[in-house]
């Protein structure tokens, strides 16, 4: 009964957007470390440790922070060429060895039913620097059955190149966020957010080239050229419903994305977190993604040569599936240990509707994430 009482107190004290309440009223924070390992077949390998934490203090304040290092090794597609007849990706000869250091901090102050947050994020790698900040306001309404959120963010980035020391270009982005979270019943809630992004600056990928041969003329080698702006919308809806009799929770996320490059994308993730007992839980999940190609995507250079063109297959038309399984263990002292294994399969025939990009080369990858966290 004491645990239930404490759980109820935690639920009543917190706004609905910070629903992951811990059971013990004495807890004021949490710290954790997570390690990601990701490996593509024949291409890149990524290792990423993430250290994160959160703490509440002086009754009305909360701070969240994280720091991560990405270590990227392996090969990357650099050139798309039809030298063999059909356009294919050509892998760079030199092995990539990059490292990205990133960190962010977020400070929140509550004023009754209002809360204001300010955040700062920094990211640095040898060919890309990013500095950003965000402001977010939340308002709990209707006896905290409804929460409205509005946010503004700005990012000032610099694009560099390991191959071209003279490249030093800006990319500035402004973001706006509007959303609502609603309790639907004692066992269900939904959140829907719309984010709008306005980007200006350098979007060309300094490492991508398109080399096209013609039967009746000289070949053309063209560097990656993209528009100098990118405006996008992302509409994300998340639904959670707990089934007490089944000891499980349904988690559904759907995102619709579109931008002025002509890309339309749908992302759907469905997961079922099942409590095996008080200590163990499993979470099988399935993610599906599909996108239409950018207007300027082409694996070959047409004639006459256009001003903008990119053969990067990430801008093509394709789809992908990713099943995963997470195992969660609750140990003594509130310590949580989690492990996830997942598989990524991106292919042109997984594209939803319409025609997919013929030149898209199937990507297969596996990943694993392990993490441990504890309250304090």
């Amino acid at each position, binding site marked *: 009964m004491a645990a239930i009482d404490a759980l109820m107190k935690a*639920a009543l004290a917190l706004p609905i957007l910070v629903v992951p309440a811990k059971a013990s009223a004495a807890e004021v924070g949490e710290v*954790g470390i997570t390690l990601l390992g990701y490996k593509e077949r024949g291409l890149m390998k990524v290792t990423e440790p993430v250290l994160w934490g959160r703490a509440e203090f002086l009754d009305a304040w909360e701070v969240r922070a994280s720091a991560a290092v*990405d270590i990227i090794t392996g090969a990357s597609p650099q050139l798309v060429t039809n030298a063999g007849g059909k356009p294919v990706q050509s892998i760079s000869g030199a092995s990539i060895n990059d490292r*990205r250091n990133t960190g962010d901090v977020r400070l929140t102050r509550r004023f009754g039913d209002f809360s204001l947050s300010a955040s700062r994020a920094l990211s640095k790698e040898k060919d890309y620097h990013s500095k950003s900040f965000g402001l977010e306001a939340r308002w709990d309404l209707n006896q905290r059955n409804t929460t409205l959120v509005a946010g503004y963010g700005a990012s000032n980035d610099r694009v560099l190149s390991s191959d071209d020391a003279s490249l030093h270009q800006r990319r500035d982005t402004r973001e706006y966020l509007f959303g609502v979270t609603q309790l639907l019943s004692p066992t269900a809630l939904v959140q829907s957010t719309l984010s709008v992004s306005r980007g200006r600056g350098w979007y060309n990928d300094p490492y991508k080239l398109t080399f096209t041969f013609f039967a009746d003329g000289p070949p053309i080698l063209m560097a990656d050229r993209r528009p100098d702006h990118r405006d*996008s919308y992302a509409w994300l809806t998340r639904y959670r419903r707990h089934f007490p009799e089944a000891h499980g929770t349904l988690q559904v996320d759907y*995102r619709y994305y579109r931008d002025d490059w002509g890309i339309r994308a749908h992302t759907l993730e469905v997961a079922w977190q099942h409590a095996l007992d008080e200590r163990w839980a499993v979470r099988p999940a399935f993610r599906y993604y599909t996108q239409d190609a950018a207007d300027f995507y082409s694996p070959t250079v047409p004639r006459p040569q256009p001003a903008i063109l990119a053969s990067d297959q990430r801008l093509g038309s394709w789809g992908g599936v990713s099943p995963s399984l997470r195992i969660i263990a609750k140990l003594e002292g509130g310590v949580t240990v989690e492990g996830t294994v997942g598989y990524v399969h991106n292919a042109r025939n997984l594209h939803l509707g319409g025609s997919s990009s013929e030149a898209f080369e199937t990507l297969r990858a596996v990943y694993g994430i392990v993490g441990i966290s504890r309250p304090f």
Partner: protein
Amino acid sequence: MKLAAWALAAAALCLAACTTVAPYQRGYLAREDMALDANPGFAKAIEKTFAAKEAASGGASVGGGGCGCN
């Protein structure tokens, strides 16, 4: 604008359709597996992994910054 109209319509429908949940009824809603943003370390790691391979990204927050991965 069409997208914004759909978002507002969905929000209005949601607000009209749901019932009020009293504070003492929120025990299940406080469960960790009901969280919209679960383990921050997992979320950061996996979101960035997918964002590096896909053209679409974002939706849940603002001010997160960019990376040279896409």
